[in-house]
């Protein structure tokens, strides 16, 4: 059954036929779980030892769809096993234990567990485990951006196998499982000359794209970053380094999704390393204009990098609206995926904070966009909206949370923005996207930025006011949402802030705050009233109109 994982019959009758591996030192539980899973029409393999389980998994790479493991086991810590399994085989792993303490559950999730079940386990809980398998597949498909998601996943797994030998001698701390990741990791370490392109060529798999390779690399980086974070805060820089490498990947990626991810990665890089002046901001600006309909997302992504670079050295000087956009992008947070990188996020935040004093609204907006891998069209729109925001960034998102920033908006910037805003107007959806992004940003940021409830609430009010008066229902909603978003900063409304999409994000109070300033800026331009923060909402409204 393991041999033909690609087109196994289970895909037809999913979730029946799911291949489960159960690992538990208690024979009683093994028996019970086996029986329960069989009742769900799954194919069960039981294992009493963690080492045995790992061997089994390595032996039959595609032999299992999901692993259920106990936490306390004599020969190996359940969490360690969990990590190894997730890393090597990228299988969804479910933890289970008698102990349901929050700290334990958190640890499980931190180590990558898809779920944490409490013993005694009931049938209905086991019936649902297929969702984790399905979810992983869907995500893989998205990452890969392939048409035949399942096949690609399988292929990728195969490829990892192929590279076992190649990278065995490289050793290191990488397991044989994700060789591609190894290679890419090495790339990060700059010890080897292998890159995703090279890996791809080596693999010589027709339908495998660099995106696929990159997505694996990202995952691996996530893992590494997490490890580093645990070790040292400075380790985050290491993560940054890895992120730095991502720009290389970005070059090769055309998929919107990928580019977004990568760019975000890059953005992350930008955040950390002011020295990472990789992307000249100006180029990006142009691109943004050009690529409006297509690669805007990607553009914006790169922009952040530029922005970061520029901003960091001269936080005060980002007055030029043209570059402002790019700059603002810089601080954008990387793909929500990277939200896991706590260190990364914090770094970004701090960086952004610096920036924000000067520009920020831009950045934030852009950041928010970037975070959300929104459809290209929307991204496109967002970019436009963001552009107008350059100078008004003065709105203190992060740092100046305490003060109502609007006053600092630079008129010149405002003008630019207004122009841009008008351009943006036709896009319309931008704000929706913005809000979505901001939300996403928020989620990312929430970890690091200190809540600025005071200032934001003010803005919210302004926004609400304006939105109600000026915008059409849609836009008004957005603004209100934005306003709500700010309110969320108080950590209450996040859920309610945004309609539909946004709600999911919930997390970033700060993000919201950050985003909103941008929105304000955008609005302002329309009205060309850069001075008053309250006016921002108006501007935003305008932007919304565009949407």
């Amino acid at each position: 059954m393991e041999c033909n994982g690609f087109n196994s019959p289970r895909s037809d009758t999913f979730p029946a036929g799911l291949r489960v591996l159960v690992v538990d030192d208690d024979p009683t539980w093994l028996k019970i779980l086996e029986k329960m899973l069989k009742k769900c029409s799954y194919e069960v393999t039981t294992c009493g030892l963690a080492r045995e389980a790992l061997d089994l998994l390595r032996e039959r790479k595609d032999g299992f769809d999901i692993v259920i493991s106990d936490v306390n086991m004599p020969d190996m810590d359940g969490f360690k096993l969990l990590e190894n399994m997730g890393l090597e085989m990228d299988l969804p792993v479910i933890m289970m234990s008698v102990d349901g303490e929050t700290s334990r559950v958190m640890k499980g999730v931190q180590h990558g567990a898809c779920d944490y079940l409490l013993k005694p386990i009931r049938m209905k809980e086991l019936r649902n485990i297929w969702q984790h398998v399905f979810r992983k597949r869907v995500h893989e498909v998205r990452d890969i951006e392939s048409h035949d998601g399942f096949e690609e996943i399988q292929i990728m797994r195969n490829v990892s196998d192929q590279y076992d030998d190649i990278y065995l001698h490289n050793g290191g701390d990488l397991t044989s499982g994700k060789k591609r990741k190894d290679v890419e990791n090495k790339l990060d370490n700059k010890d080897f000359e292998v890159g995703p392109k090279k890996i791809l060529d080596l693999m010589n798999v027709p339908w495998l794209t660099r995106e696929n390779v990159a997505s694996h690399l990202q995952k691996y980086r996530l893992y590494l970053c997490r490890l580093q974070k645990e070790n040292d805060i400075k380790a985050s820089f290491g993560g940054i380094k890895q992120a730095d490498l991502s720009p290389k990947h970005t070059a090769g990626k055309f998929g919107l999704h990928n580019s977004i991810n990568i760019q975000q990665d890059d953005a992350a890089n930008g955040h950390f390393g002011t020295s990472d002046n990789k992307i000249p901001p100006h180029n990006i600006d142009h691109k943004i204009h050009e690529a409006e309909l297509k690669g805007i997302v990607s553009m914006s992504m790169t922009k952040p990098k530029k922005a970061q670079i520029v901003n960091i050295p001269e936080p005060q000087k980002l007055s030029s609206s043209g570059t402002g956009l790019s700059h603002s992008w810089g601080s954008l947070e990387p793909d929500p995926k990277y939200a896991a990188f706590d260190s990364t996020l914090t770094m970004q935040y701090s960086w952004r904070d610096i920036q924000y004093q000067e520009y920020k609204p831009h950045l934030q907006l852009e950041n928010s966009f970037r975070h959300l891998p929104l459809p290209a069209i929307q991204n496109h729109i967002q970019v436009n909206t963001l552009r107008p925001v350059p100078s008004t960034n003065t709105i203190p998102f992060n740092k100046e949370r305490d003060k109502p920033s609007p006053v600092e908006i630079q008129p010149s910037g405002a003008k630019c923005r207004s122009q841009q805003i008008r351009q943006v107007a036709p896009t319309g959806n931008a704000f929706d996207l913005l809000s979505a992004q901001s939300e996403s940003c928020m989620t990312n940021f929430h970890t690091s930025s200190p809540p600025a409830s005071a200032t934001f609430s003010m803005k919210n009010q302004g926004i609400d006011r304006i939105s109600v008066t000026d915008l059409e229902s849609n836009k008004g909603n957005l603004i209100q949402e934005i306003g709500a978003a700010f309110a969320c900063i108080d950590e209450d409304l996040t859920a309610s802030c945004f309609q539909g999409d946004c709600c999911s994000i919930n997390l970033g109070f700060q993000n919201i705050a950050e985003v909103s300033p941008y929105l304000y800026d955008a609005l302002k331009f329309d009205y060309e009233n850069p001075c008053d923060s309250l006016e921002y909402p108006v501007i935003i409204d305008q932007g919304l109109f565009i949407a």
Partner: protein
Amino acid sequence: MEGVIQLQRQLVEYRTSLYNEGFLDDQFIQLQQLQDESNPDFVVEVVSLFFEDSQRLLNELTKALHQQSSDFKRLDAHVHQLKGSSSSIGAQRVQKVCIAFRHYCDEQNTEG
């Protein structure tokens, strides 16, 4: 036939009393539901397994307790295992006792 029916009735009564007294809980019901045609002795098998396993654990526990200076960590580990096993078949009382036992271990209370 009469005898069989009687025995069955007794069994049901006994089982109910076990539930009522808190010896058994929902998990046991789950186990019973798992039993079906393909595996008629499922419950018996599981319970036997449990007895074997817990016997081993109890032996270990006794040994550990008889030592001069009991290693509470080990005790705790054993009890934790027993707790897990007992919860698997729904042995509620045993599970509760295990929890109490573990508290004693935390306090390093030999008396308990």
